């Protein structure tokens, strides 16, 4: 026994090294798993308030751009509203279906921390559980899809950016209606790739790629980007498609979190169906 202790003591540095490295590896693996409530990240209020300070300095310099984007979105929404009112008037539908109107609810939020140059990028926003945000909700901007909520604290939330090599978004080519998966490649922050589009499809450059609504996170029809180029290698079962993202992630300032009211209902229905067929 004494020799064992002597042995451990002689090599204490090496054993501490192993212990710490195992602990860190465990942390890395834990952190890779999706959607959880964690304390050691930027949703922590102390950390987030330091980030907010930094962001508010940066934001001051980009106010002009932010204002331009917001006013553009305002006018777009105003047009949409007007159009909608006219349709309602034409169809004499003054009352909307309450289920339909409550399916999605939007919460606006400000970006307090954002990165685009790592392989796994995250965005911190200034809304948390006090605004009803839960892990797994979709985040969009005026231009298109942004990501999904990973973890929340009381006042802040961390969002997995679309620019994260682990993030997969079920999507569809709008013109042809074929389904695929959008995933970022880790290098260029304005390009993502669209995978699993089979050979028989005929995509063209400029086709819109939108979310499919098959995964109960993004509502269907959220714009992701346009096809920039595509290749079909010999013998390959799927196309290699590059999609130019609609959102410039380097300029992200305001986002909207989508609360999908029927998510729980849909998830439990789908799960029970899967369980039945087993």
């Amino acid at each position, binding site marked *: 026994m004494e020799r064992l202790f002597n042995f451990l003591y002689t090599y204490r540095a090496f054993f501490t090294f192993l212990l710490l490295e195992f602990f860190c590896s465990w942390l890395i693996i834990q952190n890779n798993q999706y959607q959880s409530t964690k304390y050691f990240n930027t949703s922590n209020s102390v950390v987030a308030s330091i980030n907010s300070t930094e962001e508010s300095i940066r934001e001051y310099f980009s106010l002009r751009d932010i204002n331009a984007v917001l006013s553009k979105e305002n006018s777009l929404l105003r047009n949409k509203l007007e159009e909608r009112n006219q349709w309602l008037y034409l169809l004499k539908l003054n009352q909307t279906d309450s289920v339909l109107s409550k399916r999605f609810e939007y919460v606006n939020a400000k970006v307090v921390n954002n990165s685009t140059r790592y392989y796994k990028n995250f965005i911190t926003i200034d809304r948390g559980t006090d605004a009803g945000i839960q892990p797994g909700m979709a985040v969009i901007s005026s231009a298109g899809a942004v990501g999904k909520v990973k973890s929340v604290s009381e006042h802040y939330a961390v969002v997995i950016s679309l620019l994260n090599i682990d993030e997969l978004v079920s999507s569809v080519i709008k013109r042809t209606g074929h389904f695929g998966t959008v995933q970022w490649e880790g*290098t260029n922050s304005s390009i993502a790739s669209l995978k699993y589009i089979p050979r028989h499809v005929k995509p063209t450059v400029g086709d819109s790629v939108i979310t499919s609504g098959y995964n109960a996170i993004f509502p269907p029809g959220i714009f992701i980007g346009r096809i920039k180029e595509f290749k079909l290698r010999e013998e390959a079962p799927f196309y290699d498609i590059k999609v130019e993202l609609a959102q410039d992630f380097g300029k992200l300032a305001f986002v909207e979190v989508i609360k999908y009211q029927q998510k729980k209902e849909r998830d439990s229905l789908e799960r029970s169906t899967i369980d039945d067929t087993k």
Partner: protein
Amino acid sequence: MTRNFILYIVSFVVYVLGQVFFKNLVMFNTGFCFLYVAFILLMPIETSNLFLMIAGFAIGFTVDIFYNSLGLHAFTMVFIAYLRNFWLGTITPQGGYDLGALPNLPSQGVQWFLVYAVPLVFIHHLILFLVESGGTLFWYSMLKTINSLMFTMTVIVILQYLVPQRSRA
């Protein structure tokens, strides 16, 4: 000892804040500055492996919280902290180190300092980017590593000229 310890804590806070406030400072989209590595690199030569690893873990973990990459920087910092003393032993100059000397630029000279710091910073960056990408994207990670290495080393060297350094612990 206590005086040293207070100095460590102050420099810890300064390194972390510096890292956090300048974390969006990136050159050519691929060059990052991980200045906080200097916290471990510039500790006195006699510092024990154990202390280095614990300090490395602490600063890596703190930086991780801000980068949303729990465990990643801590992993690489522990690795560097473990390697540091072996590397110092390998590159001992003729006649050995002076008692209580610091492995920094004023006391050891530019040439020695580069030989000492460049490989360690290189390994740090390489592991960081490879682990982050999950082993894929090797060549892009290599590009990031080399650009970051140049950026980080430039900042570490310049800061040692700007901020007066002690040459003894």
